C-alpha cells in the first residue's frame, strides 16, 4: 500500500492510500465527533456528524466516508466544519427526548457528550417530538427506541459482523424505526454487543437497567470465564455490587466484542442463590459453621479416607473454569497428601493420550490469524455455541477464503461453508481420515510408512479431495477441532489425524477446550498423569475412573460432575454412595446439598484474583473486581489454609501472585516437553453407548452460566443442547 501525505489542523501526517480521513485522525489522536462510524463496521455516513473542512472541496465532507488524498488539507475546527456539526446536532436533538436524568446511558452517552459542545441550549424546534413504540426484543436487551438516532450501527453489526440479520431499519423517512421482524426475536449469541455500539440510550442491558448511573460505577479489568478464548472485560461495580460486564478491547483476543455468555453470566453471582457461610451436614441436617470448624472437619475426614487407602480411595475433581492458582494449589494439596487422583476432564472419554501429549493444550497459533485464513477446516466444531467470538473470526476469513466442516451437527453457521460433510458421530474419525488419504495422494512425501500403513484401506472421494486441495493450496490454512472432539471416544485418534493432516498440507491446527481454563488446569497439574508444569507424578485415577469406579471420598472444587460430566448419571451415583464429599462452591442450590457432607463457600469469578491461560497459551492475570460476599473466600486462600491444617510445607503464600509466580517459574524451567504422538489404535466404528449425542448447551457450560437468570430465559437456552447428529439411525 502506498502512502499519502496530508495535514490535519495544520499538522503533517502520513496515511495509507484508501483510508478514510477519520481513521487517520483517530490514529493521530485528533478526535472527530461521530455517531454512525465504527471502526469494525462498514461506512454508512448517515449521521453526518463527522463533517470536516477539506480546503479543496467547497462543502464540508464526512470524514468517515472521504478517502485521503495526497496533499489534502483538513481542518476539523473551522466554521465550515463546526457549523455543519452544529446543524446536525440540532437536527438530532429535535426528535430526541430530553430524558437524560432517567436514561441509563446518562453520563456515557455520545449524544449527551457532544451536545455539550455542539448543541445550542435553546432549541428552535417547537413542533411535537416523535415517539416510537417500544419493543420487547428479549431478556438481554432493553429498548427505548424514541431515543434512537438511526445510526444503524446495530443493524450493520448483525448484518456484517454476525452474519445474522435480526435488526433492521423499517419504514422510511422520519418514520424509520430500528426494529426486529417480530418481537422477542434477538437470538444471536453475541447480541449484547449492540448495547455497546448504540451511541445513545436506545439499547441498554436489561439485567442492569436502572441499577446504577454511569458516574457512580467503578471499573476493574478482568478476564471472562466461560470459554477458552479468555475475553478481556471491564467489570463495572458500585459499592461492591457488580452492575454489568462490558468488553475491554484486545485486538488479539476478543477485539472489541463480548459474547452474551461472558457479558451476562455475572448475574449468577449477584442474583443466584449464593453459599454465604460454610456448612456441615450433621445427621442429615445442614448446619452453618465457622471456617475453623468446617475446615477441621474436612481435614479430619480427608485424613480418614486418604490415610485408610494410601490415597487410592479419594479423588479431587476441579471445574473447567477455576483459576490456575486454585488448580495448582488443589493438586499440590492432594499430591502432598499422597493422593494422585486429580482431574478436571469430566467430559473426556478417551484418556489414551495421557502422558504423551505436551503440557500445553489448545492452539499452536494465535487466534487472530483465523481472520486471514485462506482455508479453514472445522472438525466437529460448533463454533457459534462453543466459542461465539471465534465464529466471528472465521466468518471474517470467508470474505476471501473457504471454510469447510466435517461436523456431526445440525450446523448453525454464520458463514458460508465451501464444503460440509455430516458424518454420523461414530464415523467422525473415519470420515476425517478420508481427507488425510486425499491429502496424502496430493503430497505423498510427508506421511511416514507406518502412518500410511495405518490408513491403508481408507478411500477418499471427490469432496475429501476438494477439502485437501484447499488446505494444501491455501497460502494460510488451518484445522480447528471443536470441543466435541475432546469428548469423543476417539479424541486421540482425531488429534493425531489433525496433526498429520496439518503436516501434509502445511496447515496450522488447534483444538478448542471446554471452559475457560483447561490449558491452565493442565499446566497447573490438575491431571492424574503429571504434576505442575508437566512434572512427574505417580499414576492416579482419571475423571472417568473416579466417577465410574466410585470412591469413598471426593473433593469437588467448583465442579458439578452430576451436571457437567459426560458420566453425569454414574457420577451422581458415586457421589451419593461416597462416605465423604466436600464441595467448594459459590452456590447453595446444586445437588451437592444432597450428596455433600461439607460445603465451603468460595468466590466466583470476578470475586477472586487469579490467572486464566487461554487456548493459545496466553497467561492472563487479574485482580478481584469485587469482594466475595459474606463469609465466602477466594478459593486459593481456602486451599492454603487447608494445607496448613495438614501441616504441608510450601503453602505460606501471601498473595495469589506468589502462587502463579511459583508455577510460572516451573513452567519456564520445564520448557517445551513435546512427546511424539503414537500411531493410534486401528480405526473402527466406536461403541454406540460411548458416543455422545449431546454436547453441553451454550448456557450450560459451567456452574455460573447455568445460574445466570437472563441467559436462561433466552431462546438459545432452551434450544440447547443441540442434537449432535441428524444422520442417526
Amino acid at each position, binding site marked *: 500500500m502506498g502512502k499519502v501525505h496530508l495535514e490535519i489542523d495544520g499538522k503533517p501526517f502520513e496515511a495509507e492510500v484508501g483510508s478514510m480521513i477519520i481513521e487517520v485522525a483517530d490514529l493521530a489522536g485528533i478526535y472527530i465527533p461521530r455517531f454512525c462510524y465504527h471502526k469494525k463496521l462498514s*461506512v*454508512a*455516513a*448517515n*449521521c*453526518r*456528524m463527522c*463533517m470536516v473542512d477539506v480546503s479543496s472541496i467547497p*462543502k*464540508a465532507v*464526512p470524514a468517515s*466516508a472521504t*478517502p485521503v488524498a495526497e496533499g489534502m488539507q483538513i481542518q476539523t475546527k473551522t466554521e465550515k466544519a463546526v457549523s*455543519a456539526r452544529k*446543524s*446536525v446536532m*440540532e*437536527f*438530532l436533538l*429535535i*426528535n430526541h427526548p430530553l430524558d437524560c436524568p432517567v436514561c441509563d446511558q446518562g453520563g456515557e452517552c455520545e449524544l449527551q457528550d457532544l451536545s455539550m459542545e455542539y448543541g445550542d441550549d435553546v432549541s*428552535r*424546534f417547537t*413542533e411535537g417530538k416523535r415517539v416510537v413504540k417500544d419493543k420487547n426484543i428479549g431478556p438481554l436487551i432493553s429498548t427505548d427506541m424514541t431515543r434512537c*438516532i*438511526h445510526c*444503524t450501527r446495530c443493524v450493520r453489526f448483525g448484518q456484517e459482523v454476525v452474519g445474522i440479520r435480526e435488526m433492521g*431499519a423499517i*419504514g*422510511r*423517512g*422520519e*418514520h*424509520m424505526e430500528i426494529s426486529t421482524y417480530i418481537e422477542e426475536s434477538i437470538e444471536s449469541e453475541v447480541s449484547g454487543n449492540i448495547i455497546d455500539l448504540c451511541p445513545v440510550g436506545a439499547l441498554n442491558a436489561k439485567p442492569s437497567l436502572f441499577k446504577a448511573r454511569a458516574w457512580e460505577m467503578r471499573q476493574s479489568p478482568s478476564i471472562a470465564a466461560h470459554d477458552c478464548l479468555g475475553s478481556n472485560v471491564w467489570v463495572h461495580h458500585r459499592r461492591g455490587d457488580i452492575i454489568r460486564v462490558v468488553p475491554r478491547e484486545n485486538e488479539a483476543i476478543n477485539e472489541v466484542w463480548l459474547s452474551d455468555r461472558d457479558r451476562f453470566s455475572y448475574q449468577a453471582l449477584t442474583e443466584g442463590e449464593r453459599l454465604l457461610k460454610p456448612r456441615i451436614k450433621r445427621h442429615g441436617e445442614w448446619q452453618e459453621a465457622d471456617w475453623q470448624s468446617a475446615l477441621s472437619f474436612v481435614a479430619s475426614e480427608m485424613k480418614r479416607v486418604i490415610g485408610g487407602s494410601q490415597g487410592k480411595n479419594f479423588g479431587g475433581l476441579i471445574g473447567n473454569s477455576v483459576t490456575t492458582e486454585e488448580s495448582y494449589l488443589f493438586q499440590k494439596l492432594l499430591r502432598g497428601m499422597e493422593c494422585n487422583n486429580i482431574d478436571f476432564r469430566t467430559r473426556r472419554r478417551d484418556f489414551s493420550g495421557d502422558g504423551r501429549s505436551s503440557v500445553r493444550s489448545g492452539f499452536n497459533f494465535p487466534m487472530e490469524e483465523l481472520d486471514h485464513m485462506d482455508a479453514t477446516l472445522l472438525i466437529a466444531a460448533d463454533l457459534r455455541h462453543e466459542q461465539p467470538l471465534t465464529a466471528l473470526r472465521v466468518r471474517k476469513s470467508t470474505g476471501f477464503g473457504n471454510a469447510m466442516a466435517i461436523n456431526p451437527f445440525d450446523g448453525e453457521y454464520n458463514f458460508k461453508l465451501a464444503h460440509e460433510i455430516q458424518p454420523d458421530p461414530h464415523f467422525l474419525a473415519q470420515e476425517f481420515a478420508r481427507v488425510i488419504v486425499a491429502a496424502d495422494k496430493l503430497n505423498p512425501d510427508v506421511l511416514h510408512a507406518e502412518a500410511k500403513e495405518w490408513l491403508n484401506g481408507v478411500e477418499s472421494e471427490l469432496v475429501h479431495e476438494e477439502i485437501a486441495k484447499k488446505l494444501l493450496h491455501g497460502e494460510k490454512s488451518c484445522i480447528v477441532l471443536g470441543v466435541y472432539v475432546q469428548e469423543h471416544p476417539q479424541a486421540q485418534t482425531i488429534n493425531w489425524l489433525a496433526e498429520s493432516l496439518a503436516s501434509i498440507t502445511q496447515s496450522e491446527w488447534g483444538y478448542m477446550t471446554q471452559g475457560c481454563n483447561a490449558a491452565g488446569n493442565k499446566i497447573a497439574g490438575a491431571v492424574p498423569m503429571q504434576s505442575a508444569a508437566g512434572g512427574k507424578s505417580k499414576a492416579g485415577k482419571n475423571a472417568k475412573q473416579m466417577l465410574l469406579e466410585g470412591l469413598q471420598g471426593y473433593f469437588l472444587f467448583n465442579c458439578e460432575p452430576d451436571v457437567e460430566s459426560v458420566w453425569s448419571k454414574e457420577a451422581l451415583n458415586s457421589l451419593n454412595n461416597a462416605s465423604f464429599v466436600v464441595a467448594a462452591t459459590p452456590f447453595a442450590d446444586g445437588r451437592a446439598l444432597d450428596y455433600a457432607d461439607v460445603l465451603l463457600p468460595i468466590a466466583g469469578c470476578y470475586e477472586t484474583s487469579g490467572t486464566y491461560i487461554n487456548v493459545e497459551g496466553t497467561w492472563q492475570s487479574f485482580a478481584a473486581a469485587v469482594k466475595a460476599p459474606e463469609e465466602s473466600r477466594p478459593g486459593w486462600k481456602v486451599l492454603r489454609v487447608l494445607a496448613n491444617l495438614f501441616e504441608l510445607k510450601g503453602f505460606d503464600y501471601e498473595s495469589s501472585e506468589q502462587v502463579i509466580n511459583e508455577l510460572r517459574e516451573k513452567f519456564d524451567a520445564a520448557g517445551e516437553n513435546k512427546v511424539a504422538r503414537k500411531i493410534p489404535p486401528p480405526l473402527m466404528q466406536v461403541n454406540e453407548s460411548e458416543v455422545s449425542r449431546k454436547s453441553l448447551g451454550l448456557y450450560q457450560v459451567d456452574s455460573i452460566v447455568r445460574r445466570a437468570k437472563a441467559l436462561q430465559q433466552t431462546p438459545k437456552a432452551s434450544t440447547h443442547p443441540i442434537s449432535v447428529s441428524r444422520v442417526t439411525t
Partner: protein
Amino acid sequence: MANEVCFRTLHLDEPWSLEAYESVGGYSALKKIVAGELGYEKIIDELKLSALRGRGGAGFPTGLKWSFMPRNMPGQKYVVCNSDEGEPGTFKDRDILRFNPHQLIEGMIIAGYVMNATVGYNYMRGEFYEPFERMEKALQEARDRNYLGEKILGSDICFELHNHMGAGAYICGEETALIESLEGKKGQPRFKPPFPANYGVFGRPTNVNNTESYASVPVILENSGQWFLDLGKPNNGGTKIFSVSGHVANPGNFEIGLGTSFKDLLAMAGGMLGGKKLKAVIPGGSSSPILPAETMMQLTMDYDAIGKAGSMLGSGAVIVLDETTCMVNLAAITAHFYYEESCGQCTPCREGTGWMSRVIHRILNGQGRADDLDNLDRVASNIMGRTICALGDAAAMPIKGFLKHYRHEFEYMIEHKRSIVAE
C-alpha cells in the same frame, strides 16, 4: 421542429408497435453497428458532439458519462434505465414507454454495445402498469426479431433487457437508490464515491441514464451529432420534452428544441387557463426553485438560461401558475412531498424535511410566528450540501425559492391568518 426525436412515432397508428418504429427508421442505428459501420468510439464522439445532456434532471453530458464506463474491465457490467419518473410535474418518460418503447430498447442495446454490457434493466416506477405491458410486449417483439438476446442479428453482440418494477418511492429515482432498490433493498442512496460506473448494480460497473436520454441516442446516430446539436443550441443540444402542467389551457408534453422561448412554449400549451394572468413558473419539476412571471417571460428553455436565472431545467417539468395561486399552500405541498419521500437514512434530510413541513403547515393553519421564516430559511440552509444524496438539496432549494420571491405572502399569512390571494 416538434416531435422529431423521442416522439417521432406519435403521429402513426399504434405508434408503439415494432412496425411503426421501423417505418420511421427504427433499429437502423443498431443495424449499422452490427454491420460494423459504427464503432463504439465513434458513437461516443457523436454523443459528445450532440451535446445531449442527461434528461433525468442533473443534465450531465451523456457522451462523457458513457466514456467513464470501464468497457474493457472483465466481468459483468450493467446498463440501467431510470424510468422511475417521480419528480412532481414530470410525465414524459411514461409517454415514451407507452408510445415509443422500441426506441428506448434500441438506445439501451446501443449503450450495452458501447459499454460492453450484456444485461440491462429498465427500472419503472411501480404504478406504471400500462407502460410495463407495452414495454413487455415490445421486448418480446425485439427478442423475436433478434434485436435482443444472443448474437444480435448474427453479430457477436449479446444483450438481454429486463423490466424491473418499483413499488412507490420517489427516492428510487436517485440513481444509487435505484440500484439498491433493483437489488431488492430499500431505496436508500449510497454515498458517492464510488460512483455507479465503478460500483453499481451487484457491485459491478453500471451506467444509469434517464429514459429520454437513452431514447434520444438512436436518432442521434441515424442522423448525426451535429444534426442533434443544431436542433437545440450550443451546450444544450437537441430537443427536449417539456411536460407542461398547471394553469394552462392545453397541458401536455411538448418535444421542442432546447432554447425555445418560454413564451412560445406557453403558447403551444394553449396559453393560460381561462385567460388568467401568469404569476410564476416552476421550470424544472418541484425541486427547482420557482421563478416569477417577469423573469420567465424573458427566458429561453434550456439548461444554461434557466440555471443563470437561479433555477434549474431539471427534468423539463414546467408547472405554470396563475395569479390565484397561494404560494404558502404550494410551499406546504412541496415540503410535505419531500418529508414523505425522504428515505430517512441521513440526519439533516430525515429531520429537516419534517421540520420544514411542520412549520409551513403551522403557518398555513394560522399559527405562524414572526421568527418562523428566518428559521425556515436557516433549516433549509442547514440541510443543503450536507446530505448523502441530492434529495436534501431538492427539498431545501424550492423552499428557499418560495421565501426569496414570495416572502411577503408568508408574512401576510402569519399576520392575517389567511392567504394574500383572494379565493
